[in-house]
């Protein structure tokens, strides 16, 4: 977002903000402790708008739930922007001072009058209007999103549509106003921070920027390839194109977790050589030539992770890893030794101190300070800097400090997997409170509230299809089919079905989903699959 890739705000800010948009996020189930902060906000009077095809647990708290049709978020955001501009509610001082490209943006959103937006999104115009006015006139407002926004073929555009709204109203760069992407895993943010993105060096420094790259090359004493790398989906394309021949997979399970898993497995199988380093013997590990057993990073080794509020925190070793398992750091160091790199066996802190030299955002974060302060929110430029609760305050400086933030006008495009008579139901995916990703971690404990892998149907669809709760059904998409029990869920409406992602063994949702992916971010379309549901054995 306008430079560094991280949420703009702190959790505490949502406790006192006036308007909250939870957009494509069921934080109540997927980010429960963040939701505690949000609930405190509600108790303090904040109004909550939830944009989600399902009337999820989170949506049940909303002052207004907007049951948007899957994949129409851009149309909704643009229509809201149009209302805001037409009613003169845009924050023109902010727009003039801190942004560029307003004219083009205004022109784009003018193409989304309420009637059209209502038709695309399924949400009545008066509701869109009300939401737009509430957002624009709020003293402070936050937009919070998760995978409902980013697991689409046009994920990046979805995010841009939301950031545009914040720029239009000035709801960014101030305490209480901001844009908050909630990260799905404990260190997605940290991975980004550390440069585990194809086009970035640690600290979100662009690898293709010769000045920044040069600085890091100097510290590392090695040249760095000057072009950006492939993202995950491109890697699979490359597998299939026989351009990628060897793969070193650390702590990922693409054989299960990729949308269209059949396609993914074919890609992995075509490799000449694969190394998997993991704490589990995953499906991917089973396909590997070499498996390196790893220690669990959060309980069996030392290091740091970064949370969704940019807070870098220490993880510590509490247990000895089992058997021959070693920490990721030790495995990589030994591998480097074997390859003759001469790194020795550095401690986690030594590696961290090097990172602090490479990434200006992390320079002030010594282990000692991280311990003392209970983590630090980047940027933290030196050892006297407390870190920042929110970022982008520079946009409020007059004149703006640094480059202005550009509007990126985006157009709505329908989901790739079209609904037809043969595949009339829109299937979306999500998370259960007690589940996590593909379920290898969360499956280990005996949860009294585990629902298990089901296909969830609206009461209307269940009645139409004469399907009883618990009955086994076939879910069929253009790519595959699975047999699972049905569950009736009144938070769904007619035409919308839902599967949780945690049960790859019994209800492998990724056999159904489509591999269409966002060319900008590489995220696949998990959220919008066309399916039909049939009674099993028919």
């Amino acid at each position, binding site marked *: 977002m306008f430079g560094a890739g991280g949420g703009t705000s702190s959790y505490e800010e949502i406790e006192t903000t006036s308007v909250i948009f939870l957009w494509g996020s069921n934080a109540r189930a997927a980010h429960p402790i963040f939701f*505690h902060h949000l*609930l405190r906000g509600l108790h303090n009077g904040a109004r909550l708008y939830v944009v989600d095809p399902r009337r999820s647990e989170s949506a049940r708290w909303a002052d207004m739930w907007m049951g948007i049709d899957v994949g129409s978020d851009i149309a909704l955001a643009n229509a809201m922007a149009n209302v805001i501009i037409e009613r003169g509610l845009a924050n023109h001082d902010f727009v003039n001072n801190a942004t560029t490209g307003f004219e083009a943006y205004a022109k784009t959103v003018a193409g989304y009058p309420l009637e059209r937006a209502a038709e695309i999104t399924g949400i009545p115009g008066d509701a869109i209007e009300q939401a737009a006015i509430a957002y624009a006139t709020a003293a402070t407002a936050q937009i919070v999103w998760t995978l409902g926004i980013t697991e689409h073929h046009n994920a990046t555009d979805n995010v841009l549509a939301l950031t545009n709204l914040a720029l239009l109203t000035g709801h960014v760069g101030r305490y209480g106003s901001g844009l908050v992407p909630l990260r799905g895993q*404990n260190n*997605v943010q940290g991975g980004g921070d550390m440069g585990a993105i194809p086009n970035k060096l640690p600290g979100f420094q662009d690898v293709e920027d010769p000045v920044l790259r040069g600085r890091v090359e100097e510290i590392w004493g090695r040249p760095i390839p000057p072009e950006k790398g492939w993202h995950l989906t491109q890697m699979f394309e490359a597998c299939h194109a026989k351009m990628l021949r060897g793969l070193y997979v650390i702590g990922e399970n693409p054989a299960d977790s990729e949308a269209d898993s059949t396609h993914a497995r074919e890609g992995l199988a075509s490799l000449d050589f694969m190394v998997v380093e993991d704490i*589990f013997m995953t499906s991917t590990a089973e396909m590997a030539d070499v498996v390196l057993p790893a220690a669990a990073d959060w*309980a069996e080794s030392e290091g740091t*992770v970064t*949370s969704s509020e940019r807070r870098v925190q220490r993880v510590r070793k509490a*247990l000895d890893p089992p058997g021959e398992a070693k920490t990721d750091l030790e495995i990589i160091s030994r591998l480097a030794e074997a390859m003759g790199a001469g790194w020795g066996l550095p401690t986690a802190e030594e590696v961290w101190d090097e990172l602090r030299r490479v990434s200006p955002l992390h320079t002030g974060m010594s282990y000692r300070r991280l311990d003392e302060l209970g983590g630090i929110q980047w940027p933290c430029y030196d050892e006297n800097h407390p870190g920042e609760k929110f970022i982008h305050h520079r946009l409020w400086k007059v004149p703006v400090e640094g480059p202005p933030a550009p509007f990126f006008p985006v157009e709505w495009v329908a989901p790739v997997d079209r609904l037809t008579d043969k595949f009339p139901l829109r299937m979306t995916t999500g998370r259960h409170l007690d589940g996590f990703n593909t379920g290898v971690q*969360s499956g280990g404990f005996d949860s009294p509230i585990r629902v298990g892998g089901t296909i969830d149907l609206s009461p209307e669809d269940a009645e139409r299809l004469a399907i009883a709760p618990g009955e086994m059904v076939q879910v069929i998409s253009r790519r595959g089919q699975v047999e699972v029990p049905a569950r009736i869920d009144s938070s769904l409406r007619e035409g919308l079905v839902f599967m949780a992602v945690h049960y790859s063994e019994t209800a492998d949702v990724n056999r159904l989903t489509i591999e269409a992916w966002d060319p900008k971010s590489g995220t696949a379309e998990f959220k919008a699959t066309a399916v039909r549901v049939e009674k099993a054995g028919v």
Partner: protein
Amino acid sequence: MTEVALVIDGVDVVVNEGVTLLDACRSIAKQQPTLCYLETLAPVNVCRVCVVEVEGSRTLVPSCSRKVEGGMVVQTDSERVRHSRRVVFEMLASSVNLALVDHPTREWMESYNVDPARFGPPAAPTSDRDQRHAGHHGEVVGGAAETVHQPIKVDNSLYVRDYSRCILCYKCVEACGDDAQNTFAIAVAGRGFDARISTEFDVTLPEGACVFCGNCIGVCPTGALMFRSEHELRQADLWEEDRQSVTRTVCSFCGVGCNLELHVQDNRIVKVTSPQDHSVTEGHLCIKGRFGYEYVQELGDLASTPVDVVLRRARSDS
């Protein structure tokens, strides 16, 4: 911020307006006993062990909730204060099993010479507390001191509820409700001495609204609410707190970044808590952070130390 001057036990104290007498006492390092008070919860002022004497007030006042006022003259250790605190502790100790109550409370009880036996021997255990109707109770003979005893509730794989240890401090209700989790799976039911923590119609936790975040357990001061793992180890006489290490780390699941405290005994996680003074969690977690650690234990082919055996049995029993 306006400041307020008051006198506590003869010492002049200046504090910010809006703070409580308890805060003011703590600012001069005068600790007070508390049971129902917790920094992260709204004060309910029900246990009354924190009462202090404020000049001009007809009754004693709860220091945990009473706001400071300019010119207040406060006694925290007068004979009157000590009397009430002692009797209140005696009432609790005579009606509730306090064997696992926190350490400071035990010290306070000793310092006040608490003697619960003066009310007579404890009455025979009862099992009908969940059925009692408001305003009605059985014949009282008076030979023995009635207690809040009721059978221990083991109705799920993760928690155990032993309300014979419950002092009705409302903390679990607050943590499950408004002050944190907002799930409202438990509330106070019944009235008077028969008031108890209950689900709707006393249904089991899995039948009720519980989402198994464990936040009620995290705040319970008496051991009435306990993780199944701890309960089983205690039953087997294997719970050895002095052999446990507590390591702070970060939850391995979603991206919120909750801090965890892993309590480890014999290289096994036996309990997970969260630091109360951390801004992200304030001590609260979700089911994944609280209980989702099993997978790392399972990877280390559960050995045959006694701890492992008990933990494994607990899991397979449920």
